């Protein structure tokens, strides 16, 4: 059983137990356009909430991805290295960025749920 939350930076965090799978939303990939490179952190690194954890580059520009919650990176999606377009094709599935063991469940609970995020997306465009 997993639960998903969203940030105002258009990241999703899918939590199963204490492991969060993090990626960018479909709205984000559409805004970015064709993703040509994703720079991911090394497994084992610890991030505090809000720290820059990854970079996603489209043809047009580079965008930072911030750690939506504090935690330790347990795994990164190395498939993105050779095939960054997966982020456009399946952002919520095969296009995930990294998994983190979260430090503080309250940080997760404070993020937007699906309904709040959809309302947020409507309001920002």
């Amino acid at each position: 059983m997993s639960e998903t939350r969203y940030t105002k930076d258009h990241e999703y965090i899918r939590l199963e137990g204490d492991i969060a799978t993090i990626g960018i939303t479909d709205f984000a990939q559409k805004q970015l356009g064709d993703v040509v490179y994703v720079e991911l952190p090394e497994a084992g690194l610890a991030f505090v909430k809000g720290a820059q954890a990854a970079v996603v580059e489209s043809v047009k520009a580079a965008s930072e991805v911030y750690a939506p919650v504090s935690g330790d990176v347990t795994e990164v999606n190395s498939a993105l290295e050779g095939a960054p377009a997966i982020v456009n094709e399946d952002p919520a599935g095969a296009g995930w960025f990294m998994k983190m063991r979260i430090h503080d469940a309250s940080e997760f609970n404070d993020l937007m749920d699906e309904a709040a995020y959809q309302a947020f997306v409507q309001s920002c465009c």
Partner: protein
Amino acid sequence: MASTDQDSSNSLRLTPLHGLHCASGARMVPFAGYDMPVQYEGILAEHLHTRTHAGLFDVSHMGQAFLSGPQARARFETLVPGDLANLAQDRIRYTQLLDAQGAILDDLMVTACAPDANGDERLFLVVNAARKAHDFALIAAALPDLTLDILEDRALLALQGPEAASVLAGLLPEVATQPFMSMRRFELGGVTLFVSRSGYTGEDGFELSVEAPEAERLAQTLLADARVKLIGLGARDSLRLEAGLCLYGHDIDETTTPVEADLLWSMSKRRRAEGGFPGAAIVQEQIASGARRRRVGLALEGKAPAREGADIVDMHGAPVGRVTSGGFAPSLGRPIAMGYVDASHAAPGTPLQLLVRGKPLSAHVTAMPFVPTRYYRGQ
């Protein structure tokens, strides 16, 4: 994920094709004071379509003007280093407006037109959108004896790509053999078109100056051909970067000279020798002794792109320059960049490192264009 898009402002100007862009699903962004399409279906697809078929670009934001009067060519030569005295009628020259230091105030296309009604020389100018107010004020002030007729009422479309000529020849058969860097005037259904065989993609193609109220009809006529798609500013930028072409305000500006910018090819032997343009002594000194720094192409070894502003260092980490344009090259499937480096590091093959988010990316100096140009060279 932090967005780099700027908020749109309600004071933005609209081109005559604005309605078409919105109806075509464009994502609009502010650019040079205009609300412009950055992309329609996506930059990669639009870029590759232009390289394989034909892309239609709205470049109506650029400035168009006629400059006419006695000795207009010789008079305009006092502002630019390009050779206009020896420019045959209907031929186009790429050149730059320079300041007293020989630095570039803008780059522009100059066409030698047929004489005006008084029999005086007449030039057609196309300048950058962001610089047009500046350029036209400068020209009017510097050459008060000439008449500058700013064509606010004309749109500009670019049709670019290997199929551009056959598409346009369907409407205007004579363009099939029109020489590269020439302009012709056509009447099409009662509308006057200035058709230049030129562009900003490295491909064969045309720029079409048309009366603003007729622009959408012309665009729709071209788009009715299945080989033609609308292309946004995003792909325009990646196409010109692959072609090694400068973007004003990025690769050239008021701090760079034509010699540093590797634009000496646009200056004839006569103009180099005679001078007679702003900053000529400085430019001539750089031609004679070499510029301290040079614009070069940079090929990156890895997959990560380096963007404008990235510092360039040598293999020991000593700073030698800065990236002025960079990104992913869709036609090559890898990142490319251009930038200025110290002359001692400008030779093709020189290994360098580009600092991106504090990490060095391996690169080397490479000749431009990155993708071979395919301009029309006759049959």
